């Protein structure tokens, strides 16, 4: 009997100890990035454990929605949400996440740029703290470019990119492609190019569907030009990493966070062989910046330790030292305003051949046209994945026709009108 009581007591204390554990759901490179801040967090809260789980991008979203739908069941203490998708949660489940102003988040407002807050706030309520942003760039292999005789400094427009791709095809007999596109798997190229042209699925206030606007048409046409030139592999996320690992792809077009993916996934002998150049312009002298992704951290209302979770988040995201480490070690671009112009950014990155890539990439942040996520982001995206794929396959007579069909489909599912 005595032994049973002791065991029970031990079990109880065990649960009490594990109650001091915070769990976080994240994807990819965010796992080691956030883990790197745990030590400094534990200096404030000794004895509190933080478990960061990598569920993969789409799974975090799917399980988050399912959890919120189930009234906050099976949710972590800290939840990573993409800015684009954030408004789905706030509009469908206004009570699923803690209003962070109750924990003092008002003080954080001036520390981050307004465009990052736009999707994270509803009225006076703040639902998440800005994490990274995703200014786009081209990540390229110096050695492969050199062998093909391509000088990245000459690539100023997408037309130049196509020419360089042709050179690459000749040099490697078509075995090494200039880049890759998630054809039929994602519409990220469309989103990056459209953003560059100042266009998006919806207008800023999310009251109209705007994909039939000229900027989006230009984005579609540019993308098709690149695709038709046979300079891209069709490849989803993991295939693209395979191509890069096997020297079959000379560059990648993504948000700045991709640098972390490269550092984590490329074989050692590629270190130092990488470089970065700015997104090619849509036309001579055009904007050489756009944004893809960017995320924030929220606290589900079902968390038993919202205070601890909030301390973890502010320590990770609003602390300059931690943000610099996350930037240099894991390649995630900080949104923290106080870091702009920080001399540390002039530092060269070894993996990128000593290039001071952050100075270049962060320098474009001011040129990025702002866009809104809206709660209908996912369905517009699903439609555009199909439309882009069919358009690249030549199933539409023109970009306008493709985008009109897509707009009709999005209108049918959202009930929003199509802008003139």
């Amino acid at each position, binding site marked *: 009997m005595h032994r049973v009581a002791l065991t029970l007591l031990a079990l109880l204390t065990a649960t009490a100890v594990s109650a001091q554990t915070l769990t976080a759901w994240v994807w990819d490179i965010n796992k080691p990035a956030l883990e790197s801040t745990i030590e400094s967090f534990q200096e404030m809260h000794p004895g509190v454990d933080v478990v960061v789980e990598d569920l993969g991008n789409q799974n975090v979203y799917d399980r988050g929605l399912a959890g919120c739908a189930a009234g906050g069941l099976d949710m972590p203490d800290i939840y990573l949400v993409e800015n684009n998708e954030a408004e789905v949660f706030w509009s*469908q489940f206004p009570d699923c996440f803690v209003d962070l102003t109750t924990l003092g988040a008002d003080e954080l407002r001036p520390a981050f740029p307004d465009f990052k807050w736009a999707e994270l706030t509803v009225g006076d309520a703040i639902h998440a703290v800005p994490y990274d942003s995703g200014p786009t760039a081209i990540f390229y292999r110096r050695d492969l470019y050199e062998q093909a005789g391509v000088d990245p400094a000459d690539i100023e427009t997408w037309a130049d990119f196509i020419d360089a791709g042709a050179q690459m095809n000749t040099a490697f007999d078509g075995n090494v492609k200039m880049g890759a596109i998630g054809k*039929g798997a994602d519409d990220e190229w469309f989103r990056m190019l459209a953003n560059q042209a100042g266009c998006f699925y919806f207008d800023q206030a999310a009251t109209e569907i705007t994909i039939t606007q000229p900027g989006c048409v230009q984005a579609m046409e540019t993308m098709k030009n690149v695709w038709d030139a046979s300079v891209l592999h069709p490849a989803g996320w993991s295939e693209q990493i395979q191509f890069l690992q096997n020297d*079959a792809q000379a560059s990648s077009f993504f948000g700045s966070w991709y640098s972390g993916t490269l550092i984590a996934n490329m074989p050692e002998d590629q270190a130092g062989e990488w470089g970065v150049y700015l997104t090619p312009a849509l036309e001579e002298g055009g904007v050489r910046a756009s944004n893809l992704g960017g995320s924030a951290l929220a606290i589900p209302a079902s968390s038993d330790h919202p205070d601890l979770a909030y301390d973890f988040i502010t320590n990770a995201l609003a602390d300059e030292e931690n943000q610099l480490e996350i930037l240099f070690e894991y390649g995630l671009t900080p949104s923290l305003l106080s870091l702009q112009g920080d001399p540390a950014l002039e530092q060269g990155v070894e993996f990128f051949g000593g290039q001071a890539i952050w100075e270049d990439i962060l320098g474009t942040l001011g040129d990025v046209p702002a866009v809104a996520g809206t709660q209908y982001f*996912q369905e517009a995206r699903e*439609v555009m994945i199909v439309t882009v794929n069919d358009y690249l396959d030549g199933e539409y007579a023109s970009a306008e026709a493709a985008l009109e069909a897509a707009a009709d489909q999005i209108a*049918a599912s959202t009930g929003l009108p199509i802008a003139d």
Partner: protein
Amino acid sequence: MTPEPAAAPRRRPWRRRATPYLFLTPFFALFAIFWVYPIAYSFVLSFLNTRQRPWTLDWDFNWGRLVQDEYFWNALGNTMLILVVQVPIMLAFATLLAVAFSSDLLRFKGFFRFAFFAPLVLGAVPYSAVFRLIFNEQYGVLNYGLTAIGLPSVSWLYESTPALVTIMIAMTWRWTGYNAVILLSGLQSIPATLYEAAKIDGATGVQRFFLITIPMLRPVLLFTFVLSTIGTLQLFTEPWLITTTGPGNATETLVTYLYQQGFRSFNFGYASAIAYSVAIIAAIFSLLQIRLVGGREVER
């Protein structure tokens, strides 16, 4: 001390009759909570506009959209194509396999039966990951083999028709053995005397297969056919994990579309309407098959 004779018999039958229901109560409670309620609730949902809170009653909102939604028709078309092409091929394979399994010429029967059944034991996620690797355009073993014998390599996962073929091949690999084992049990219930009699009458092996085996197997074949039809209408794993319903929506099925509407777009009303359309189609198909194939047996 003598007990009242009248009271006991009056009470006991009621109690005795209640006992089985008492034992069934847990099941009925669970059935009500996890089956009846969701089925009824999703029926109601299919008439609600769930685009924005608060959800409002709108009879036509989801069903009206369903009729006009080309993405829904595309998903239905893909599902039907798989049903019409893959299921008959798979069942033909399964029948041949079952015959092989029961043949006296085959040694190590147990091993082969297990080997062909094994795909089903494997988890869906690792199996899908392996198929993604096999069908990888650049590094996949399949294209390696194709080019080795002088055939062109195929972009399995990034072109519409090859992607659909990939799904069908994967499904066939996974389910043929399962169906073969079911058919094998049917095969074993055919009396050996029938074959002996036919042999004496001079029937060839092929004749015996088509005139004895197939007709005698009809009820079991029908059973596997109905099961496969319903299974195909619920197809989710392969397109979701191997082709991620792509490229575009080339391998979108009814259920992946349902999931997308329900849990990506968070449009439960529309997802419920899709769910009910799947149920209706499944019911119609099952009835048709029983009428067409099962009915003939009765006529005889």
